[in-house]
């Protein structure tokens, strides 16, 4: 058994930022455990640009963004266990892991969960048809192309217009493949507007909304897919079925936080975010265990992952120093037009202003958000538009939480 003050599980953007923030908050004995041989997580395969505009004030590629935080980790002398897989976290915060040196048991004063997320697979989507080679999740294809240097297909259909799907539509085109279509089962795209413009429109790739892949064809390698429009219940409309010949189907149909370790540890999860239930410190319902990044909630931009990880890292340090006492909390809830609010509970009264992060249920035009506890309005904000693909943040001043003891609800109404 070895001991460390803070153990961070995952060395992607969340883990690296959390480690540096914990260190800077005065706890020097921080270690990162990562599965791969190099820090950076999925950023390593995201060779496109667009990272860092919010957080670092400049536009970087994924590996460049990762390098900034990798340097921060190295400069602080933070120890990293590479190619090490965590297999268990006990309630008493003993972390069990394994690597080519053997089995490690680390007793931690605080743990930060930063394992990221996985892609929804063909199986989970339950697309009927045959089971040939050539069906890839978009991220897997991205790794094969960008990190390993192999092309995965020549004629491609993409299901899902999330950001990875859009980025891969462009990547496949640049690599010489013909992208026949991007199909999106929802009536709107879940991706960032800038990605629709730069990755589809600029390459003349059609985006078909309310459309799904109804069947996969081909015995050994994909030979084509049947696409079809869907009704309001997302059921295939038979008469709209049409066949598109292709050798590859890429899936970009949502990301799922990888919380198997979390749930095995008995930490309660949210049914909506599939991440842990946390307070404003990103502390889970198990004391001393924090979560941040895509394992907590799937983010649109890595910049916001870094922000969230800094909160978790700093809070873990405060916890180790004995400054994070259990306190009275009030739950938050999603009201009209809002799918979820994170954190799911807040300390009252808090020491600092609290930012509430949320996603809306469907696209809206101009909206007014209201944060209320009982009849009391804690904050309000107007935005010119709202979309499920773009996370919203509303900050509530610390002093507004005085004398609050009822659930805090965030809701929206459309305004002219």
């Amino acid at each position, binding site marked *: 058994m070895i001991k460390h003050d803070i153990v961070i599980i995952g060395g992607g953007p969340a883990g690296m930022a959390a480690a540096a923030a914990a260190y800077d908050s005065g706890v020097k004995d921080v270690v990162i455990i990562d*599965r791969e041989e190099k820090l950076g997580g999925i950023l390593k395969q995201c060779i496109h640009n667009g990272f860092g505009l919010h957080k670092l004030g400049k536009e970087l590629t994924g590996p460049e963004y990762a390098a900034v935080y990798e340097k921060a980790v190295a400069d602080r002398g933070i120890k990293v266990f590479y*190619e090490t*897989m965590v*297999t268990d976290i006990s309630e008493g915060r003993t972390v*069990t892991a*394994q*690597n*080519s*040196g*053997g*089995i490690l*048991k680390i007793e931690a004063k605080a743990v930060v969960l930063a394992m990221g997320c*996985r*892609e929804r*697979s*063909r*199986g*989970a989507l*339950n697309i*009927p*048809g*045959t*089971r*040939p*080679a*050539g069906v890839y*999740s978009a*991220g*897997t294809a991205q*790794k*094969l*192309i960008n*990190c*390993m*240097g*192999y*092309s*995965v*297909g*020549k004629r491609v259909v993409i299901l899902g217009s999330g950001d990875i799907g859009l980025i891969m539509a462009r990547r496949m085109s640049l*690599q010489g493949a013909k992208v026949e279509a991007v199909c999106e089962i929802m009536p709107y795209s879940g991706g960032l507007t800038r990605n629709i413009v730069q990755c589809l429109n600029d390459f003349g790739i059609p985006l078909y909304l309310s459309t799904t892949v*109804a*069947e*996969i064809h081909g*015995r*050994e*390698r994909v030979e084509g897919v049947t696409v079809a429009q869907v009704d309001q219940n997302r059921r*295939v409309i038979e008469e709209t079925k049409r066949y598109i010949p292709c*050798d590859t189907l890429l899936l970009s149909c949502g990301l799922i936080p*990888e919380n*198997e370790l979390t*749930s095995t540890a008995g930490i309660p999860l949210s049914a909506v975010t599939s991440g842990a239930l946390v307070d404003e410190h990103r502390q889970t319902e198990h004391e001393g265990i924090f979560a941040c990044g895509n394992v907590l909630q799937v983010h649109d931009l890595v910049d916001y992952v870094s922000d969230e990880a800094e909160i978790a890292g700093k809070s873990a340090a405060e916890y180790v120093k004995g400054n994070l006492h259990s306190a009275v909390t009030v739950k938050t809830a999603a009201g009209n037009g809002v799918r979820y609010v994170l954190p799911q509970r807040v300390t009252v009264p808090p020491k600092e202003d609290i930012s509430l992060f949320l996603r809306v249920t469907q696209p809206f035009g101009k909206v007014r958000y209201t944060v209320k506890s009982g009849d009391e309005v804690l904050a309000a904000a107007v935005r010119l538009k709202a979309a499920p693909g773009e996370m919203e943040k509303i900050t509530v001043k610390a002093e507004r939480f005085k004398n609050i003891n009822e659930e805090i609800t965030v809701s929206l109404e459309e305004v002219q």
Partner: protein
Amino acid sequence: MYDVAIIGAGVIGGMVARELTKYRLSVCLLEKENDVACGASKANSGIVHGGYDPAPDTLKAKLNVIGVEKLFAAANKLNVPIKRNGSLVCAFSADEDKTVKELYERGIKNGVKGLKILSGNEARLEESNLSENVTSALLVTNAGIVCPYELTIAAVGNAMDNGAALRTNYEVTAIVKAEDGFRICSADGRQITAKYLINCAGCYADKIAELLGDKFFEIIPRAGEYMLLDKAEGKTVSHTVFQVPTKEGKGILVTPTVDGNLLTGPTALEVDSPENNETTLTGLDTVAALAKKSVPTVNFRNVITSFSGVRSSEKKGDFIIRASEKVENLIHVAAIDSPGLTSSVAIAEYTVDILKSIGAELRENPDFNGERENPHFFRTMSDEEKNEYIKAHPEYGRIVCRCEIVSEGEIRDAVKRNPPAHDIDGIKRRTRSGMGRCQGGFCSPFVAELLAEENNWPLETVTKKGKESYMFTGKL
């Protein structure tokens, strides 16, 4: 010249091969796919059936009932996980209550032990998530679950360890009967000769019979669709939950698997070709609706994959296991649909008895070793044992498949051990790498690299399941 050639490396071909290596015989197993267990043996319910279902005095009844314990014994020797979880055959109406009674009586007639009729409430005490609408159920305590492809791989592997040969991608297209035996030719121009020939070709058994002018039966390919759920759902039921059988099959079941997942299915649909194993929206919807009829709490949001398997049925409904009446030294082992897996060891022994009866000389092989090393030995170790083992074998410390926790060492083993894996799906069936909730999203690039490295192949030649199922379209 081999003593015996077996066409088809499914669970039956594999078990027959293993049984034959108990004797001083040279045995060759011919398989048209890139791997063993690629037909019905990779895509079925994985159930050890009690034996109440087949009509008395059929071969199915006889081999099923004696087959249960033989299968448990063989699986234990082969280190294949098998579990006696018991099954419940549920009725939902007064009419179906009668069927339950009939099944009970049939079971008694077949010689099945451990049968009991439960009321709906008694059944719900056994299985708390069972539907309120279950009116009675047959409890079958000797029934169990086993992984069919692991069993097949182990049987073939053990046969190979004992000297049998395996030829994959060997699609038999012509068989010439000469004085001294059979000359068996493949589509790609290879040929072998053998004194005896055993037809275990599954859905193609009638085609093989036809090649020899002995087609006295016709295989009806019948597809069954399944949905497999995440391990998070694996404890929804502990028994295998059936509905009373119909003419088409044993109905939709809900069962835990030996690996801890939850399996639902199958449908039963006659298809025009054994290759017709695609899933359909209607089929998957049917599985979900009928599974919920028995167990309303099954959460289909947690499906991790769906698949379809094609069973080899025949209109008379019984197994066809007999020496050819037309062609000397030929044995057909055909129409092996359910309970074929349960009966597989009994079928193999029965087949070898036939071989003996037609004059084959069977001298015991004193070197035969019926045991097979557990391919999952590493995962059964305690943390302390793992630690020691990794110190000597560091490749077992490096995890490749994060969902199922499979190490690099186990993947390299799967390429080296009998029968060696040649493709990504082969690795998956042997190690469970890619079998979990991300379905190979994270591990398949690494698995492809290891497969290429172990075989000295360029990476772009790696396939998902042989032939034209290439993973890459070139190097950038």
